[in-house]
């Protein structure tokens, strides 16, 4: 058993069996983070490069900690301080890094498809840590892990993803992941933030949040990505919050055992009320802890059969 491909570029390319293998491995990896000595020698002598063309705290830190807990050497490159600002192309940056023999390159890039270009250029394993509005597969994997950990299964559950679907790579990756694992998926948001033809991915689309959250097992709130919205998609943040913000009042319409997730960083009081984000149903911090375990699992699995 193992992963078939050298790289992890998208959830679309993973099979249900591969997703299950990653989640099972992550379950074992999670134990390492609970020890006094949070380190195992598994990836001793391996090099992981974090190449981030966009700001990130949790994803970059999570990959760094994951690599270090497995004893890999982790190097972080923040491109605003690198030769990228001198005009180097992605391919050239990739080749330059490859000359230093890394085993894995984790890339975040504003352009959809950038990780694939790198994967075709380099012999190292490439992990997509978010490419534009395309995919963010490790986020979807940690979300699935978190849901499975709470519910004991994924098959037959239902989830709703709420907010800025149009700009969200987290939404796209989760739609693929949840569908493959046998969950039913709803999307909810203002019509201007719902991509056309998205229903072809086998999801139900809602423009009324209160309708959308009725009966589902999981609510996944998305951040309003003001930095990606070149133009105005809704009249005001206040109106968005009034119609699509998740607050305690609205939550009364959801199931009693509802789980609430958010990939972070959260805009308190915009898409999610502070009482909800910090409330008992919130899994936001579990998602962060589980992110490390899932990324450990991926580093381990990708560094095996690929070469």
């Amino acid at each position, binding site marked *: 058993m*193992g992963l078939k491909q050298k790289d992890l570029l998208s959830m679309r390319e993973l099979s249900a069996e591969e997703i299950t*293998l990653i989640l099972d491995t992550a379950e*074992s990896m999670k*134990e390492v983070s609970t*020890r006094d000595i949070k380190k*195992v*020698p598994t990836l001793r002598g391996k090099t992981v490069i974090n190449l981030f063309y966009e700001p990130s705290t949790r994803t970059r830190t999570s990959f760094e900690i994951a690599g270090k807990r497995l004893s890999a050497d982790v190097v972080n490159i923040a491109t605003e301080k690198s030769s990228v600002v001198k005009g180097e192309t992605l391919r050239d940056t990739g080749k330059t890094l490859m000359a230093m023999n890394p085993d894995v390159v984790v890339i975040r890039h504003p352009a959809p498809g950038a990780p694939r270009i790198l994967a075709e250029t380099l012999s190292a394993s490439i992990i997509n840590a978010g490419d534009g509005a395309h995919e963010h597969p490790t986020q979807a994997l940690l979300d699935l892990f978190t849901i499975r950990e709470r519910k004991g299964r994924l098959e037959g559950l239902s989830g709703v993803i709420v907010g800025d679907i149009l700009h969200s790579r987290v939404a796209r990756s989760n739609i693929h992941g949840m569908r493959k694992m046998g969950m039913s998926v709803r999307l909810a948001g203002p019509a201007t933030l719902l991509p056309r033809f998205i229903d072809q991915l086998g999801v139900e689309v809602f423009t009324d949040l209160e309708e959308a959250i009725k009966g589902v097992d999981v609510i996944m709130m998305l951040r309003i990505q003001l930095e990606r919205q070149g133009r105005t998609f809704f009249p005001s943040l206040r109106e968005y919050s009034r119609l699509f913000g998740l607050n305690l009042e609205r939550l009364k319409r959801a199931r009693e055992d509802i789980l609430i997730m958010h990939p972070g960083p959260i805009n308190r009081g915009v898409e999610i009320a502070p009482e909800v984000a910090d409330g008992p149903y919130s899994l936001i911090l579990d998602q962060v802890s589980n992110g490390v375990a899932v990324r450990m699992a991926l580093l381990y*699995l990708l*560094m*095996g059969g690929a070469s």
Partner: protein
Amino acid sequence: MKKKEKAQILDEMGISRALTRIAHEIIEKNKGTQDLVLVGLRSRGVDLARRISQKLKEIDGMEVPVGVLDITLYRDDLGSMGPQPVVRKTEIPFSINDKKVVLVDDVLYTGRTIRAALDGLIDFGRPRSIQLAVLVDRGHRELPIRADYVGKNVPTSRAEQVQVMLKEEDDVDRVVILEPVNC
């Protein structure tokens, strides 16, 4: 390579007797079960550790805790054999600091698994001592490692395979030697 059964080394009664003797030897060597803990190596070592713990209780009346160690993350051959082996959970829900730890595995062969287990165990604390109990010692060590308690010594050739089957996983208690079939 296809293998066929060459001989049965232990049957159900044989396994039970061997484990009873090991339990007595553990008590004798450690002068009781005070500060003793068992750690089984996945997967059949865990079943054997639980059985030994049960026997220790019958003899001494004390509950000896059993932990589970998966050594995959400590292997020395990762990346050199194709797809990564499946990592399973390590569960040692007690402190091993200053304890006498008895590692339990089914077959002792090259000693590499035990080397990995020693590394793994020491990440959990500083035991007073680590001892090793195995159901079968088949020889061919590649490292300076030996067992403190052995159910049965079995001379084998490297081409052969020793297979331990236990009721917990295989529905039957027996140990056999498999030899390659010449096609």
